[in-house]
């Protein structure tokens, strides 16, 4: 009987020894406590985690011996894994940190409560040291973060480069547009020069012809006058023929004088004069024609003089031409509105701007005269030709087609401008710009 008991004890000892060896050989820390939380046993894994020999731990309260923290905050006693296990019976794996000397261990703890007897309970905790794994994950996270930052930085650099490229492209586009504008301007200037050269050639040719025709024409006119006197009131048919000849000679003379005027425009004598006074004098010159056509003249003009640099006679010639043109365009009962004012040139504008070669300079004060009629306006297809010599829409014999050419030449010689355009509300506006 005693021998059997001894053998049984030996067998139990063997089993316990094996269990101890088995539990001691695993990395996971295993610790069990009594119902009061005092350590009853722990394996070597737990020794390694705590850095203390198990013999030193036995009997010690686990909560005090194992101060845990989560997210950098110390876990309060009521939330300690041991307390949770004793309260709830079981605890799934949770992450904690344990300060051991200078290092902080990352632990994963789980456990359960079990009954030793009706009155006695115990808790068993499995503690896994995952510090290396956590560090590895942290390193991976840092690497990923670093890679993300690098990528972010690279993208930002790429974005900056794209922005810079866009700026360069925009700059290039602007320069390209500027070059296009300059090129267009150059082409326009060249076209104007070619046109001017053509006009000069036409003018010279016409002047030559006019000179050659003028004297024979005088002979014809004198001859016609002589014959008219000889015939007297005699042969009415012959007299009618002579009158027709005289009339044709007068028309031809008008054309020739126009050609000579056009070709003789070489210089103007500029001095400051009152534009208002010149305008009034011009209106006065054509008063009879205005009255005949019952043209109403509206003046939007200040009382005080408007001084401008001009050759008075030439400008008067221009104004008479423009007023008559407008009156004839309106027919009977039109309204002619004249407006004069000064204008200071801003930074840019057609024909007036900041580029060298522009007719007017920024900041320059100009005198402006506008003449509006209430006529039918100028057909769009004619607008580009109205300043061409001999261009006219009047019936043959009613106009030489030189009036506007001469007027424009005169204004050009003044260093000014003559612009003619259709008004939105109908009619034509002639705008004369003078330097002051």
């Amino acid at each position, binding site marked *: 009987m005693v021998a059997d008991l*001894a053998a049984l*004890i*030996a067998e*139990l*000892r*063997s*089993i*316990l*020894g*094996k*269990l*101890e*060896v088995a539990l*001691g050989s695993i990395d996971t820390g295993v610790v*069990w406590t*009594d119902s009061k939380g*005092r350590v*009853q*046993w722990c394996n070597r894994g737990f020794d390694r985690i705590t850095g203390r*020999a*198990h*013999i030193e731990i*036995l*009997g010690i309260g686990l909560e005090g011996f194992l101060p845990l923290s989560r997210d950098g905050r110390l876990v309060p006693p009521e939330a300690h894994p041991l307390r949770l296990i004793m309260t709830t019976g079981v605890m799934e794996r949770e992450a904690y940190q344990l300060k051991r000397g200078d290092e902080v261990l990352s632990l994963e703890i789980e456990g359960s409560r079990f009954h030793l007897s009706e009155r006695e309970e115990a808790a068993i905790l499995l503690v896994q040291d995952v510090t290396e794994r956590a560090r590895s994950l942290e390193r991976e996270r840092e690497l990923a973060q670093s890679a993300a930052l690098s990528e972010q930085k690279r993208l930002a650099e790429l974005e900056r480069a794209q922005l810079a490229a866009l700026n360069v492209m925009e700059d290039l586009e602007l320069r390209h547009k500027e070059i296009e504008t300059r090129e267009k301007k150059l082409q326009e200037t060249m076209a104007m020069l070619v046109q001017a050269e053509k006009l000069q050639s036409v003018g010279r040719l016409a002047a030559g012809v006019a000179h050659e025709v003028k004297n024979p024409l005088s002979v014809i006119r004198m001859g016609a006058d002589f014959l008219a006197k000889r015939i007297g009131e005699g042969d009415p048919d012959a007299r009618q023929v002579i009158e027709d000849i005289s009339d044709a000679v007068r028309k031809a003379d008008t054309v020739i004088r126009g050609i000579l005027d056009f070709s003789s425009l070489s210089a103007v004598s500029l001095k400051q004069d009152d534009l208002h006074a010149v305008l009034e004098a011009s209106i006065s010159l054509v008063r009879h024609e205005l009255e005949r056509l019952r043209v109403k003249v509206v003046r939007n003009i200040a009382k005080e003089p408007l001084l401008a640099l001009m050759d008075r006679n030439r400008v008067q010639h221009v104004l008479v031409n423009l007023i008559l043109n407008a009156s004839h365009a309106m027919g009977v009962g039109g309204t002619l509105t004249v407006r004069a004012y000064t204008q200071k040139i801003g930074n840019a504008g057609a024909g007036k701007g900041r580029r060298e070669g522009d007719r007017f300079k920024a900041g320059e004060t100009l005198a402006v005269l506008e003449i509006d009629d209430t006529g039918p306006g100028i057909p769009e297809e004619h607008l580009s030709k109205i300043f061409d010599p001999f261009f006219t829409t009047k019936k043959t014999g009613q106009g030489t087609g030189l009036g506007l050419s001469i007027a424009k030449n005169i204004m050009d010689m003044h260093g000014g401008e003559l612009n003619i355009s259709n008004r939105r509300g109908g009619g034509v506006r002639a705008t004369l710009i003078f330097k002051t």
Partner: protein
Amino acid sequence: MTLEELKKVTAVPAVISDRDGLISWVNASFESFFGWKSKEIMGRPLTVLIPKNLHDAHHLGFSRFLLTEQGTLLNKPLKLKAVTKAGKETDCEHLIIAEKQDGKWVFGATLTPLE
């Protein structure tokens, strides 16, 4: 220290047990401090000297040693509690030794009271 030397210790309590953990010898100092007469304690398990909450650890460690013959606590002073006959737990410095005699392990210890 050997078992022979242990048996000569008189200044501090000393105890010897067999391979089953049953007490086979104590000295006079032991009797005096722990309150047990030699005849009373002979044949009793060592756990009578160990606080109840350390019994599990004792059994497991003792069993592991018998199985592996690799000791982790031998021949070095250990501060542990011990229980007197009256049931009082007291801090003692344990120095545990083990020797094989006739092929069987015999264990001895001095239990120097620290209080």
